[in-house]
């Protein structure tokens, strides 16, 4: 079979973050994902990964990331194993490296790793000869989420060059925000992070990033708005007052969005807490691209798996 997206340099065996990808490489993933959307319907690439065994090693709960990786791998013909951490030796205290080496021995070639420790995929890449795809590590990175967000924004806005994206919410605890900053600034966008000051601390020095500590300042002139999940499981609400305070000052609704560019699309990495980060009307309204993000999740992950496997 042939792939239409023109082959450009892709030398990465792993996808650990987007910070080491060039703009060309990011474009390559997005173009390939567009191609995968059609291919998925026609099952054109159903044996592209037939030599690969993709193991899903999720040390944190996940629905959309895990399921979309599984569907992506299966759509390309890979054998897929899901390491159900709570039912495996990992749940009995086996170390991450030992578990991954075991997966390698039984035939896994690619591991999609989600782990609560920032940097765990780097350890995995160094200490095994598996190809590692980061499915989200601690508060560090979530590269496939950033790539599907970039694809969603490219679809909504055309080029990202010179566009201003506002990322609103608990940025400090967000791996999604970090990877998006890398991806979107590489694609030429400006990024503004907004949230209560404890949630945007540490971002003042990031190249290409502006910081806003009120919602109007965060939204002013934004071409697109991404609102993040309030992650109470990461101890997030502490430090910014109560959840009610957050809702009062930061919840997105149509009225507050008036200061953003007209029709600015709304993104959310999910799962949403409707009524907390944004109103249900907004989440389900015409500006919302949240459903599109989920759809892109599968095609972007198809593209990433094909690229790290070296078959695209």
């Amino acid at each position, binding site marked *: 079979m042939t792939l239409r997206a023109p082959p450009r340099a892709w030398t990465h065996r792993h996808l650990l973050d987007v910070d080491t990808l060039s703009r060309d490489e990011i474009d390559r993933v997005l173009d390939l994902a567009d191609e995968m959307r059609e291919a998925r319907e026609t099952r054109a690439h159903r044996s592209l990964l037939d030599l690969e065994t993709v193991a899903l090693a999720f040390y944190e709960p996940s629905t959309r990331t895990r399921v979309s990786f599984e569907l992506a791998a299966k759509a390309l013909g890979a054998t897929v194993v899901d390491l159900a951490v709570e039912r495996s030796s990992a749940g009995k205290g086996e170390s991450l*490296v030992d578990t991954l080496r075991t997966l390698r021995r039984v035939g896994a070639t690619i591991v999609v790793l989600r782990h609560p420790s*920032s*940097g765990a995929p780097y350890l995995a890449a160094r200490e095994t000869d598996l190809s590692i795809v980061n499915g989200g590590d*601690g508060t560090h990175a979530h590269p496939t989420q950033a790539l599907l967000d970039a694809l969603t924004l490219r679809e909504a806005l055309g080029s990202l060059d010179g566009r201003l994206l506002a990322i609103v919410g608990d940025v400090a605890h967000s791996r999604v925000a970090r990877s998006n900053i890398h991806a979107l600034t590489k694609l030429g966008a400006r990024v503004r992070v907004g949230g209560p000051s404890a949630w945007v601390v540490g971002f003042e020095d990031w190249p290409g990033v502006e910081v806003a500590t009120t919602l109007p300042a965060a939204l002013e002139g934004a071409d697109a708005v991404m609102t993040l999940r309030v992650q109470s499981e990461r101890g997030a609400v502490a430090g910014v007052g109560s959840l009610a305070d957050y809702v009062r000052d930061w919840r997105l609704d149509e009225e507050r969005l008036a200061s953003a560019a007209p029709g600015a699309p709304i993104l959310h990495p999910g799962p949403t807490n409707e009524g907390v980060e944004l109103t249900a009307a907004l989440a389900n309204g015409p500006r919302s691209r949240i459903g599109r993000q989920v759809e892109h999740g599968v095609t972007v992950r198809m593209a990433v798996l094909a690229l790290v496997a070296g078959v695209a």
Partner: protein
Amino acid sequence: MIDAGFGRLTDPPASLLLARVRILDPAAGTDEVRDLGIVDGSIADAAAVPASAPRIDGHGLIAAPGFCDLHTHLRQPGDAAAETVASGARAAARGGYTTVCAMPNTDPPIDRPDRVRSLLDAGRDAACRVRVVGAVTVGREGMAVADLEGMAAGGAIGFSDDGASVPSAGTAGQALRALSALDRPLLEHAEDADLAAGGVMRAGRTASQLGLPGWPADAEVAVVERDLALAAETGARIHLTHLSCAASLEAVRRARTDGVRVTCDVTPHHLTMAETWVAGDRAFAWEPSRRDPSLAFDPMCRANPPLTTRKDAAALLAAIADGTIDAIATDHAPHPAERKLVPFDQAAPGLIGLETALSLGLAAVEAGVLPLAALIAALSTRPAAIIGEARGMVVGGVADLVVFDPMARWRVDRSTLASASTNTPLLGMTLPGVVRLTIADGRITYRA
């Protein structure tokens, strides 16, 4: 006749003539090239060396007083997989050290006179002198002050709850009052547990980018200020170990002006490795950053206190040169591989340092950011003075010295390290400075 090298030396007795060696003696303030004689383990006039003794060309080599490490984890008793007195002392000798001060955070901790004595016994035949630091509180639990007087009588040279600060100011003050009568220093690991809470690397831009919880400089400075106030109040001696922040140095300078009896040390890694090493940087703190992203989150770069900023590293280097910092102490912290083969935030903090301290110092000397004489004094005579020991190169004195080639290079390699552990981010790197000979108390303890 000039023999080929040090490898053929036999022991005992340590008698030899080292021709045309550069002798650096911070105690005497001398730096000269001449012949160095050693007869039966004592420093002698070259003319007094018997003709039968080996003669070695010392051209290009430096001879200096043996190094003294104020902060060593020998992991004995309780953690032989990481290190033992024997293996740690071999690592010390290979690094040019003739004395190490063993920290008491062992299992069980060194918190009683009998435990001090048994550790001293274990060090009797080691490849360097082993001095013992006793715990400040019973069980290192931070509650009841331990039997400091008994441990001092048993040979403890100082006291520390290293791994943590003495948690409460009241307990620290009580310990300092007891120590003022014993003339032994409190060796304080300055870290406010509340302020440091959960931090695994220095707070700042790199921590923010890596999504790792930050450890703020305040965590150190708060305890430094507290201890300096207590030392002023009690008149006791305080030694602040592994300082990593410029603000701590300022506090030390101010306290000294006020007459507080304070000394302090810094580790080789805080002088040379910036926090950007956690992001994969492997350039020294004074060089432009050189990142290899595949090395990011290397658990070998997790230390406590965490690796510092470039700005603080520069301040620490300058403080050795200006005398604010008395000593370079390794905080040699061996860990078996499995404790570092985990994600960064779960890794045991610390790195080995005895075999690389001189080399890291010489890298700074080569770069022009640390004077050689200050480096040697901070490794040898100045730390020795803190534990009440004299070092020097005077004729008639016992030979206690190191001979090294400052220009030669070596590759830090798992297989050649003498320590039982190999946890250092320097693995694979090539460093300046090769130790050729170490003589501790007149006895050859290392030669190459």
